[in-house]
């Protein structure tokens, strides 16, 4: 296939006013709407019962002790360690100590797990539905002609995607149809949303994906569905037990302060 240099196509400026701007504005508006819809759909975390709170918070207590052990004197650490290891191993903080040896509940039947999954579903729907609708709209109305030229060259592989509906074999890949402008908006409007809605907005789906990657961000889901608290307690007890290194931060502090001056 011959590469035509300096291919030039005259376009009607009205293309810009009737295609480029509508697509951009619709993309921005959907982003803003998605942001507010996500805020509305966020269900308040379900209150936990006392025993569940106790189970989670005491587990966190163990983690805190392990992470910040160096902040307290060795003797204080040792007494806390022996107490917590003993309590963790005996399972006295568990919601139902009898269930210690049972297999973990099916996440589908656990109401808390269902709740978490429902939230995830909602988030996904908020991203997928508008995307599909807009892509369908663009394909239905604006396909079959090129609207703009990209300022940078792309490989021939992109031709079928970026010139979809344009059956011209020899046209430079840099000429693209309205669908490509949609993709550019999809990825490039992030900075715009940052300024309209603030940084942690739900308009941008790349952020939403990252958030879904780590659902442990809130303590409500410290024990995710399907995890066995009894096993996690035992693992934490073991982690605490094998901690041998303890370096109290107050050791040698007088020299550090003197060295600072």
């Amino acid at each position: 296939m011959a590469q035509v240099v300096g291919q030039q196509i005259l376009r009607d400026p009205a293309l810009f006013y009737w295609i480029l701007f509508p697509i951009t504005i619709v993309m921005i508006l959907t982003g803003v709407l998605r942001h507010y819809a996500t805020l509305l759909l966020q269900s308040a975390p379900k209150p936990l019962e006392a025993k569940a709170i106790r189970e989670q918070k005491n587990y966190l207590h163990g983690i805190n002790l392990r992470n910040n052990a160096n902040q307290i004197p060795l003797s204080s650490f040792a007494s806390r360690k022996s107490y917590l290891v003993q309590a963790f191993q005996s399972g006295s903080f568990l919601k139902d100590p009898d269930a210690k040896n049972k297999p973990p509940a099916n996440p589908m039947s656990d109401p808390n797990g269902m709740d978490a999954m429902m939230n995830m579903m909602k988030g996904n729907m908020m991203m997928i539905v508008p995307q599909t609708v807009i892509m369908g709209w663009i394909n239905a109305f604006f396909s079959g002609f090129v609207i703009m030229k990209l300022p940078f060259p792309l490989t021939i592989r992109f031709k079928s995607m970026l010139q979809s509906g344009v059956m011209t074999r020899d046209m430079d890949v840099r000429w693209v149809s309205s669908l490509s402008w949609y993709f550019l908006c999809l990825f490039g409007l992030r900075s715009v949303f940052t300024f309209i809605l603030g940084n942690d907005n739900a308009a941008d789906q790349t952020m939403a994906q990252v958030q879904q990657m780590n659902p442990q961000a809130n303590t409500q889901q410290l024990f995710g569905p399907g995890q066995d608290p009894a096993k996690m307690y035992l693992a934490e007890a073991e982690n605490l037990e094998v901690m041998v290194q303890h370096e109290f931060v107050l050791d040698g502090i007088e020299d550090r302060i003197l060295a600072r001056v």
Partner: protein
Amino acid sequence: MTRSLPSKLLIAFSSILLAHACYSAHEHSLLLSSTPSPHDSPSATPISGTTLPLDITLETLISVSLLLVGIISSGWELKPISLRSYAGGVESGRILLDGKKVAGLFDGLEERPGFLDVRKQRKEFADWVKTQG
């Protein structure tokens, strides 16, 4: 973020300059495409950045640089990341929030709003009012 007057002016001025440069470049390309060159058909005018006149290029570059300077110098506030200098700044009042002294970073641990003894404070206030006569 509080924008100072000079940077506001700078932003306004350079935005106008940038808009003007954009318009000039547009006019330039219109002119170019409507005057057919002898050896080329109008539908295949080769265009490239090099044909843009020097004054428009300079105007664009200068206006964007000024705009960037204006935006970046308009009072964005960062906070020191080291606890020692941040906490020290807050305690001594060097770091202010909207011109006001902020409470110490961990004051809540000693004030404990959840355990506020309101009757005691009420009594203290009543006593103070009495001393004021």
